[in-house]
């Protein structure tokens, strides 16, 4: 076990991890932040996507040590206190989450997109979500939700 220090959702956290841990394992098993999901454990599905220094990153293939000293945001950190992020609210309104398992990763990819491009086209949304597999929706309602959120954010 070694101690890794992470800045997650604004909190400085320290946790003991085996040296081979990924960022996803540290989040889920070390810090109890189970919002980020493990769907394949090899970077294929995108359910583990978190935001590291503003970029959407696959936490299941990111060694935990690479996240040290960086700013990590997970699905648990997207809301502003009690106020949900517009993307979260629009996912609910638009039926963009069915089983919800890919949702945390898709939300992180979407927020990372909107933070750098406040008014993305549908093709830009498609491209930004190309690393997140969703097996339920056929993606259509997800695009609707991201577009509606962009409108609400004034993009």
């Amino acid at each position, binding site marked *: 076990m070694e101690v890794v220090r992470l800045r997650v959702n604004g909190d400085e956290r320290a946790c003991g991890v*085996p040296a081979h841990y990924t960022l996803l394992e540290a989040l*889920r098993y070390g810090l*109890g932040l*189970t*919002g*980020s*999901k*493990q*769907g*394949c*454990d*090899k970077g*294929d*599905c995108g*359910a583990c996507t978190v935001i590291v220094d503003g970029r959407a990153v696959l936490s299941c293939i990111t060694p935990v040590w690479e996240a040290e000293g960086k700013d990590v945001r*997970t*699905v*648990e950190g*997207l*809301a502003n206190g009690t106020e*949900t992020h517009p993307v*979260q*609210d629009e*996912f*609910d*309104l*638009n*039926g963009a*989450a*069915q*089983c*919800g*398992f*890919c*949702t*945390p990763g898709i*939300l992180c990819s979407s927020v990372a997109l909107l933070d750098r491009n406040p008014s993305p086209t549908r093709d830009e*949304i*498609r*491209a930004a*979500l*190309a*690393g*997140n*597999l*969703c*097996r*339920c*929706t*056929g*993606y*259509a*309602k*997800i*695009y609707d939700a991201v577009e509606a959120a962009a409108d609400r954010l004034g993009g």
Partner: protein
Amino acid sequence: MKRLSTIGRPMRKVDGLAKATGRARYTDDIRLPGMLHGRILRSPHPHARIVAVDTSRAEALEGVHAVVTGRDMPTAYGIIPWTPDEYPLCVDKVRYIGDGVAAVAAVDEDAAIAALDLIDVTYEELPAYLDPHEAIAAEDGPYIHEPRKPGWSGNVTKVVKLEFGDVDERLADADLVVEGEYFFEGTTHTPIEPHCAIGLAEGDGKLTVWSATQVPHYLHRELARVLEVDPAKVRVIQPSVGGAFGGKSEPFDLEFCVAKLSMMTGRPVKILYTREEVFYAHRGRHPFHMRYRTGATREGMLTSVDAEIVLDGGAYASFGLVTTYYSGQLLTAPYQMPAYRFHSTRAYTNKPACGPKRGHGSVQPRFAIEVQLDRIAERLEIDPIELRRRNFIGANTRTVNDLRVTSNGFLECLEEVERASGWKRKHRRLPYGRGVGVAGSTYITGTNYPIYPNDMPQSGVQLQVDRSGRVSVFSGASEIGQGVDSMVAYVVAEELGVPLEHIRVLAGDTDFTPVDLGAYSSRVTFMLGNACIEASRKLKAKVQGAVAEAWDSKPREVLLAGGWAVRAGDTGTSMPLRQAFNLAEAKFGTLGATGSYNTPKDVHGSYRGATIGASPAYSFTAHVAEVEVDPETGFVTVEKIWIAHDCGRALNPVLVAGQMEGSAYMGFAEALMEEQIFKSADQGREGLHNAPSLLDYRIPTSLDTPELESLIVESIDPEGPYGAKEAGEGPLHPSIPAIANAIHDAVGVRMDALPFSPPRVWRAIRDEEERRRAAAPSGRVAVAGGVK
């Protein structure tokens, strides 16, 4: 019907916010104090006898708490009670690469993985069958399973031969007979959440299993039976499930293993499948080898259909007995069919077991028949939509195999896709390389019989009212993302006039919910929805009675809506619903009610097998797909799919459209991309899964998926809750044949084998060019587009 306030409107889901904030808890998110981690050792051979298993070295490893093998759980099980042919872990034989042999519980995953390497298994390899035809042909063995009866083949799960009307006579009389051979490659569900289970055996004999299952009730029964635990002491909890699609609808090895390992260690044990193991667990779409002969009159009226089907079942029966029936039984609508025969044989092979995937057993024959219809339309020069219209079976009728059909909005579905897609200006009119295709289908809204025969309700629900005005709904149904918990809340809100935020749906725990048979066969909205209406109306009658007494009016004059009790025709007389509930509690005692549903008995015929495929109602669907085919590469791009679906009534149109889009997406994926395939001996490793990963088993990303347009059709079923039928599986069926027919419209080739991958399409185009070249009289090459 009175004006509806909640039903039919786009409402939030009861779990929408939890899922959008990462708070929804899935099985792998649960961590219990002292929990051990388990792993399962899997067979490296497709077919072998287990000579010996030595676990001593693994048991001696630091951190290992228990090792279990097949001999510790030697009771056979199977989701269908007539075909119990598998064990929690293999006892004497392994039947596919990936079959479970032993399981370990250790302090952490690392130790569990290390322990697997220390289990010594001695195998005696046996010849493997990868081809179902070879398995069937080996009448005298060697067999994959012991024959169930003397004289039967141990390589065949089930044979079904049924004939309705005189097929041969009608074929002989037909103006046109079209023959076709089709192959539907197997595909798998690929939920993004891998299967996961936790077992907790407590000192008092209680056993709790948390599992990502879509059938908690059946799991409850099988855990008790196989592990020899009193079923009254078994509790199954189903947390949020991250996708299922039929792939979590029977017990799996991990659920028995976590329970047994916990019983042995006294500690909670979790097993999470790796993605690779999800591909081995499978139970997905059967590969089908199909031969069809379809007769028609000059006017395009079907006279007869003759089908011969071989199902490649994989290593175990799973739902295969039902699949074998469904392969034929579900084809008899939405078109009239005066004579119909099918002969289906399900073979065992040494590959992961196939089972039910979204549109169980009927997606494959639907592909074949809809391409057959397109061929008939082409030969007779009738518009393919018109041909389907002419053969419409109608509403309130019975099919040739005696299924009772009630509401039927198929004609409206055809109209919708014809209009929305601009069909008339596109079909046979687009330039070479571009085309449109149409297909139709039907699907069951719940199966009319439970898996184990009994006369008890198929769905049940219980309501409980709190003095605060909150209504709790105890629902045994499985929320797997389709929105059943929300459906339950909408119905109760509608009936009792309770605001949605005052309804709590408590589900997925066999300790406190009435039995619902599970999330399969598109049964839940229809069956549980009706149960909710019944329970709500019982409760409502009490509330109306109590309030009427206070107002000195008649119960029927008491209306419940918008959180208030209001006197009809006198809006000045009203009270908050909470007060009305309190009056009722004072008058009748603690307030609650139950409701249940059972299918009527007149929905099927009386021949052997008549119940399989019968449903209280049927949904109907039509698709038009528009494609672009690159003749140089064989690459097919689906530009758009228009999906019209008769769901009876859309209880929440957003959720219905979500099911339609998700279905069409999944069908599209099977048409163009997905293949659950295995290596041959020539490829180095007989029976090894070709690509058990999400990178190599290609499911569509956002960039692959076409534009999808949902067109909801409401036929208002006489028996459905508010007229609702299913929407979760039916809308998948036409995607595949619609795309096949569109490819024909685009480049003039018939795609009769799935998937329509670039090499196959390219080859078909080349073959067609060759054929034309050979047929051209003066040696001149006919331009491919010229035949239009």
